[in-house]
């Protein structure tokens, strides 16, 4: 029992990271119905910015995270304007292929500029301690990841629920034409969504740097895909769904590594995707809403 608790605690920080990435996936899907396959790579760019902020500028990890979030918010807006906006009226498959193009572009531009070599987060950036309570061992890095992720989710939830921009985002997600009739600027609202989603991905990137200690230009692929699974698991387009899906997937992965064989970790994650698509394609929180006429 104690060991099970321990595994779940270990899974919480990984789950929080997946949840943060999944939030961006789901928000962007909600507003333009695009699976932004470049999202994991935005996370990677965030990890690099965090890394350079710590190693070159000597900032602490919180400041590094804020830098990464700001830079990636901008990157997200630029990606949307340059790559996706011209395709707004094109078929969805065209936009999807473009997203894969953007993903490869980010990966290989980073390799070109920074070499494919992995980099190690400087030891001083985050001295690790383990704490014990009630027989459970928790490291300060897990606590840091978990708490910052929760704080970011609360901030996001506040923005989406209570601010004018957040309400505009929900209105545009639901019905673009009706939103236009309210005087909402759809382009700005979409930009704002990319900015928010990308900033969350950047925060997750820095967290992954802290979690695994190393970063490399292709580090965004697998967590990106798993966050996608998490978003689908929770119900794509649904914000609380992304959070819950992220935590479930993170904990599941840790349990598989802890009790079974860590080699099956990825297989289980993608098995979840297959199962959810077979059993309830709308995800845990999704429902088939009929329209009233």
């Amino acid at each position, binding site marked *: 029992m104690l060991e099970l608790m321990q595994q779940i605690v270990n899974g919480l920080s990984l789950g929080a990271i997946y949840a943060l990435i999944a939030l961006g996936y789901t928000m962007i899907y909600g507003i333009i119905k695009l699976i932004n396959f470049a999202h994991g790579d935005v996370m990677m760019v965030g990890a690099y910015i965090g890394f350079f902020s710590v190693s070159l500028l000597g900032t602490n990890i919180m400041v590094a995270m804020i830098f990464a979030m700001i830079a990636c918010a901008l990157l997200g807006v630029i990606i949307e304007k340059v790559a996706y906006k011209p395709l707004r009226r094109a078929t969805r498959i065209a936009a999807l292929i473009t997203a894969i193009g953007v993903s490869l572009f980010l990966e290989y531009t980073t390799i070109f500029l920074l070499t494919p070599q992995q980099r190690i987060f400087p030891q001083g950036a985050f001295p690790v301690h383990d704490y014990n309570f009630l027989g459970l061992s928790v490291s300060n890095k897990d606590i840091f990841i978990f708490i910052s992720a929760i704080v970011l989710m609360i901030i996001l939830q506040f923005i989406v629920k209570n601010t*004018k921009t957040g*309400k*505009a985002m*929900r*209105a545009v997600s*639901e*019905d673009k*034409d*009706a*939103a*236009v*009739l*309210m*005087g*909402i*600027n759809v382009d700005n609202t979409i930009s704002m969504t990319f900015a928010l989603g990308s900033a969350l991905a950047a925060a997750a990137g820095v967290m992954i740097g802290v979690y695994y200690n190393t970063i490399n230009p292709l580090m965004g692929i697998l967590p990106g895909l798993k966050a996608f699974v998490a978003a689908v698991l929770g119900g794509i387009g649904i914000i609380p769904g992304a959070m819950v899906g992220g935590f479930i997937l993170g904990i599941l992965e840790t349990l598989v590594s802890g009790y079974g064989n860590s080699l099956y970790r990825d297989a289980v994650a993608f098995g979840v995707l297959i199962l959810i698509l077979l059993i309830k394609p709308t995800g845990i929180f999704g429902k088939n*809403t009929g*329209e*009233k*006429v």
Partner: protein
Amino acid sequence: MLKVNEIDVYYGAIHALKKLSFEVEQGSIVTLIGANGAGKTTTLKTISGLLRPRSGSIIYKGTDITRIAPAKIVEMGISQVPEGRRVFAAMTVLENLEMGAYLRKDKKEIARDLDEVFDRFPRLKERRKQLAGTLSGGEQQMLAIGRALMARPSLLLMDEPSMGLAPLLVKEIFEIIKDINSKGTTILLVEQNAHMALSIADKAYVIETGEIVLQGQAGELMKSEEVKKAYLGG
């Protein structure tokens, strides 16, 4: 107040509106009646800026709004109650109304208009925390109207407000339209329910396959043999 001059609107290759012209006078209720697919909704969408005419112009209060952004058009005082209500189903009643006032910054006046909408539609007040998607069809129509009023429009465009509603509710909605008009808002009403529309309108235009085929005072059109045969069922 509003002057539509010979607009041509296309959906791809389909010529939806052909040199369509009509006028809406300040303070009046003008109705555009016609069958399904005649181009009524297209006309309203073009006025709101969702569609662009290939030629022709739309003049509102002396300003050419033909190529102005939809948000600007709302700001200038034209708001729309779209066909099928199009309320934001996953948002609360209150949030829907707030969206109607999206471009306004005068918080006090917004609060006043909100009270006014709630006075007009007490059902909405009771359900203000409820998701719009859980409302009945009639309540959703009221919400759509309330939402458009929150922009404090001078000209209200209404697209088939009676669609899908029970006869009693239709009557109620038309009473509301008359009342909104009596408080100073000009109304351009698009309807398939020609009888109801003609009974409250001052002026009417009959539209067929993108062209105005008849126009006149609503009372006269009601008596016209052509209109009776085609739209009033006898």
